[in-house]
């Protein structure tokens, strides 16, 4: 069990009606590893992350989170992951502090520990002034910070982040990167979807590129560049995902 990777996806397939959104996708995130999840708009990144987090039904394939099978032991699996959704799931009429307190109770984090962690995260993301105001009055970036804090509050072995940089200012981006690296150094596995290729190149140990639900490439940024004509990750991305739209 100790050696189980934070995330293992085996031949995951997901359909919306007739539309094949994720097609036989397999990938693994090891302990302490930060994996970038790249792909053009509509590639299936959000769908994959939502299935792994239990928000969408797991129809075909297998997902294991730190050894817990998502289909067989959904509660255990959910307890072992934190999700930063593409649009935050917040209560408009709670303050960030109250919201974090509620989320901590959902994940069974003891009260005093939760207070400690949430005040640490609040300070880290410079939310101290906003912590007592209603989320309703928070800016987009502040909401995003609250959402990230909520996902990491129970200190899960796996973090799934869906475009977590949306709305963040440069200082907050740096704070998030530092936080992820710090936690990864202690064993956190991270799967982060992003469109910012420079960020992916510098932050991630590995990247996975998907296109129309299928995995197109995976490896370290350096390995993806090796032996190819393209000079940057951006060029590789564009070459791998550039084929024309299928007629539909």
């Amino acid at each position, binding site marked *: *069990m100790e050696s189980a990777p934070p995330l293992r996806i085996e031949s995951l397939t997901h359909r*919306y*009606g*007739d*539309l094949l959104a994720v097609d036989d996708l397999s990938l693994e995130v090891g302990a302490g590893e930060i994996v970038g999840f790249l792909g053009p708009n509509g590639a299936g990144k959000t769908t994959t992350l939502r299935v792994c*987090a*239990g*928000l*969408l*039904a797991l129809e075909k394939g297998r997902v294991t989170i*730190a050894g817990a099978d998502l289909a067989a032991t959904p*509660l*255990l699996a*959910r*307890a072992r992951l934190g*999700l930063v*959704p593409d*649009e*935050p*799931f*917040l*209560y408009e*009429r*709670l*303050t960030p*502090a*109250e919201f974090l*307190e*509620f*989320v*901590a*109770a*959902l*994940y*069974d984090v*003891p*009260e*005093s*520990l939760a*207070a*400690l*962690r949430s*005040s640490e995260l609040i300070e880290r993301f410079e939310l*101290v002034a906003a*912590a*007592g*105001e*209603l989320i*309703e*009055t928070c800016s987009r970036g502040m909401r995003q910070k609250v959402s990230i804090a909520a996902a990491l509050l*129970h*200190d*899960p*072995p796996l973090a799934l982040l869906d475009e977590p940089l949306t709305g963040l200012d440069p200082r907050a981006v740096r704070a998030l990167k530092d936080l992820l690296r*710090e*936690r990864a150094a*202690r*064993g*956190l596995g991270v799967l982060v979807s992003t469109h910012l290729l420079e960020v992916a190149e510098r932050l991630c140990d590995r990247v996975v590129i998907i296109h129309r639900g299928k995995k197109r490439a995976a490896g370290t940024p350096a390995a993806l560049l090796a032996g190819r004509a393209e000079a940057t990750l951006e060029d590789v991305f564009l070459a791998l995902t550039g084929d024309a739209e299928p007629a*539909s």
Partner: protein
Amino acid sequence: MNARGVLRGRARALRNALFGRGAKRAALRPRGPLYSLALVAVAAWIVHSGFAALLAALARPGAPPAVLRAALALALDVALAGVLLFDLESAVSTLILDRDLDLLRAAPLPPRSILAIKLLDALPRAAAPLVVVALPALIAAAQTLQAPAAAWLAAPVVLALLWAIPLGAGTALALAWLARVPARRVRESLGLVSTLAFAALWLTNLFVLPRIAAEEGEPLERVRALLAAAAPALARTPGGWAAALLGGAPAGEIARSAGALAAAAAASVALAALVASRHLTGVLAAARTPVARPARRRAKRPLPAGSDRTLPARSLRSANSAHPLPTRPARRVPLFIAVMRRDRRLFVRDWTVLGDVLTAALLWTCLPLLALPLRPLRSPWLVRAMLLALAVGLGYEIAARAFPLERRGAAWMRLAPVRARSWAAARFASAGALALALVGVAGASLGLAARLGAEEWLATLAAVIPALALSVTLGLWTGAAFGDPTWTNPRAVLTLGGRLVAAALVVAQMTGWLVLTAAEESGSGSYAWLLPWLPGLAAIGLSAVAVGAVARRINRGGYAIP
């Protein structure tokens, strides 16, 4: 404004909502609106049959056409009152709170155009009384009165004019009022409108209906006499004008009525346009001002002293935990407490959501104290029946809003490592506690006014509490199954179909409990000993089924995350 383009866009949105579109059509579950339409059709059909039967009964002994026209006028006026009481509020919310308003506000449109677009949007939402009451009544009357073809052709125009009168005048009034309240109270004021409408309905229910039912004499004769007496007054209302047009009145009256109807509708709409051009921009800006609140003291809680780093890890996931555990035995917040705490905060800060419920409970508490001493209430059965009605109505109103109140936050029900059954139970506890408190206060006042004895108290409680439990669980289920997480109008947190289903459930429960109460009152025979236990048993069984259904809904992610 490019009116054709706007109209085309709206028509497309409607079509896509009804029938879906594109390759992912199947995934979007476009059947919901179709079910709603089917339910509306059934309701309209029921009204049509009932009204046709009434007209036929009235016409058989040869009542003059004026009486039949008066009946039609009354039905149309009732529909108009329905528009004013219930739909004005949803039309004004559509006009002020709809999500596309930011887009419209940013576009170079004059307020008049925004008003026109949004009233068009409000049409399907604010036309239910017309479709369910006015239209079937018109059709039944036309059949009974053998209306000429011209009347059939004019009917849609007449209906549109009828609809414009309350909506135009009401919107003008509402906007003028909203322009005068402080910005941060606009949303609340809007809630107040619905609260008053709701209170009016409860009042009628409570006082008028029992009186009418208790009048002496042959019912049909009384109805005919009442209609004949009211005919001259009714002829001077919008419903009367429309009835004259469609019910074959003498030519002179037709001309006069047509003029009056058209003039009233035009004046209404012109008034709305005038007020909108003055105030709409300001009201829209005000409605978007968030309810600012002073910073809370609790935000900076003191950190637990001496975070000891020596304690062994508690759980498997603390093995590589980033944080030390405190030395004292860690206190966890049970889910129930966390949910109740959250609900209390959300509710106190958004009281309009349940404002109408509170008003109803307040009325139920005060009215017996004021009114009963005047007319002594002898029967404990009547007390019980009234409390049963309150329990069913209140339990549903509170519980049905539990899930929709969470909006996007409902995603945590799928995300957090908490069993769906625990969620359902926690919601039950939270909604049930509030409902129980309100019913308890109202029941105490009613019971004191009626001077119930100890035994009667017990018997009443034994009937009312199961009814409350069942209505809360069924309310939770309707909220989970039909909740609209993007609601703007606190009286419409369920989809239209959901509201119809909920209404059917409430009626069924009330009927069931009243039948049981009546059976117990006249109880004799071999199974009479069972009757006092039946409510409890039935409620436990049905509630368990409903809670199971709620849990399944949560598990399936039935509550859509937008």
